[in-house]
């Protein structure tokens, strides 16, 4: 006998709800944009530029290669930093999971790193490194490493002991244990860690570029500040916001595909 509650498709009424829900999601942005547009009628453009101007600047950025390359450079820095922090963090988490001594040694150190402000890492990077890219990569890794490490460690510690014992009873090789048990078990937490750190990284990269780079969204924001160009500042900020939204939606799509095995309850929390 199957469990119809778990496998039953969504009722037709629910899909009808997507319209109003979507509206509620969009509504705050519409209100905010409206207020801004009204403000632009009463204030000078360097304080509240018209949304049409901001939109034009966005199009300029996206259609001019020299400006688009700045956006892509920032995106590349975020992804490289996150990838570096994830690889190092996952390796540290595995060694902390396997050895209590390593855990006892590294845990306080990573907690200490977590307490260091991003701006301090920027200063350290400027003093320690000459090149722009090594500086930014270092800042990105150091600011997201502790979170990645603790999140992967938490995922490893949260794995079901019963399932692990069951897989071990088949005497798997280390590679097969990783592929069949460990990776699928910790994947949900890894994707969540990426989502959280993506937001953090997009904020940190701007600070890093603002101080220590000659290109990228952060550098361009500094230029707009010096020119008192609010439309430009908004347009460059929006590029980063768009990237985060796109990246988050890609991660959500991966989640939806990878976790299709999960039971969906009709009654939500």
């Amino acid at each position, binding site marked *: *006998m199957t*469990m119809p509650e*778990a*496998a039953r498709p969504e009722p037709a009424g629910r899909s009808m709800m997507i319209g109003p829900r979507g509206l509620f999601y969009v509504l705050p942005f519409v209100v905010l944009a409206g207020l801004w547009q009204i403000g632009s009628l009463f204030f000078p453009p360097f304080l509240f530029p018209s949304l049409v101007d901001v939109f034009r600047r966005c199009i300029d950025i996206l259609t001019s290669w020299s400006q688009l390359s700045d956006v892509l450079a920032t995106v590349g820095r975020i992804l490289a930093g996150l990838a570096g922090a994830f690889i190092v963090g996952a390796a540290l988490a595995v060694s902390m999971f396997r050895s209590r001594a390593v855990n006892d040694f590294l845990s306080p150190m990573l907690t200490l790193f977590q307490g260091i402000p991003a701006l301090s890492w920027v200063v350290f990077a400027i003093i320690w490194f000459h090149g722009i890219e090594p500086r930014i990569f270092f800042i990105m890794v150091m600011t997201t490493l502790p979170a990645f490490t603790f999140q992967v460690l938490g995922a490893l510690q949260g794995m079901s002991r019963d*399932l692990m014992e069951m897989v071990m009873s088949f*005497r798997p*090789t280390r590679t097969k244990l990783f592929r*069949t048990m460990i990776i699928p078990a910790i994947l949900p937490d890894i994707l969540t860690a990426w989502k959280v750190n993506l937001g953090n990284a997009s904020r940190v990269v701007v600070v890093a570029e603002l101080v220590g780079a000659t290109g990228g969204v952060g550098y361009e924001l500094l230029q707009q500040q010096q020119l008192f160009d609010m439309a430009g500042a908004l347009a460059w900020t929006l590029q980063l916001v768009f990237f985060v939204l796109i990246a988050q939606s890609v991660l959500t799509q991966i989640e939806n595909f990878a976790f299709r*095995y999960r039971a969906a309850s009709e009654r939500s929390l």
Partner: protein
Amino acid sequence: MTVADRIISLDRVTKSFGKAGSKAGYVAVDNLDLGVERGQLLALLGKTGCGKSTIFNMIAGLTEPTSGTVRVDGRNPFREFDSFRGKIAIVFQGDRLLPWRTAVQNVELGLEMLDMPAGPRGNTALRWLDTLGLRGHEQDYPHALSGGMRQRVSIARAFATDADILLCDEPFSALDEMTARALRAAFVQLVRDNGKTAVFITHSINEALEIGDRLVVLKRPATIAIDIPVAAATPATEREAIRCRIQDVLAA
């Protein structure tokens, strides 16, 4: 039974946990001698906490005895853990299905460990699901299956590897009596048809009498109180006498 006939052999095995003599320390298995013949279906019966699962884990190679020797097919299952790949299969108390795998993928798990190519692996898994009455549910994820169906998948997973030895740790204890009885019958039939050696742990006297062709009753800390053969043809009156004797031992 001579020593040579034994596929599983425990000689003066003791297993203690915690520091000896301390308050937290206790002896789970005490100087146990137990042998299981090839092709035998041994029902290991005892009250909760009498050390059944510790014996189970030592035979499976998941735990090492504190003293004494455990041999499976003449080898140490703990020290030579990997050499038993495909030789020992386990049916656990819960179904322990991987939630991210479909029924057929769960059955394929043990075969993947044996490096069986995908084609034959899939066919073997499908055959076992069919044998256990799960045709049509091959692509279902565990959450979409009932408790009885999930346990059938876990039995299929154990049989699919064609291991010589099956270890079962109260596999039907969480199921309703009707489902448990049907699965017990299917399980015994499969063990007999495939010539397996099985150690079946239970705390139910009825289940032990129904399944085992040899019945060992344990008392705390895991020492043998009763060790008797139970043939399928054993008359009902004799079975009743055995049941009374077991009840007396367990009550004591």
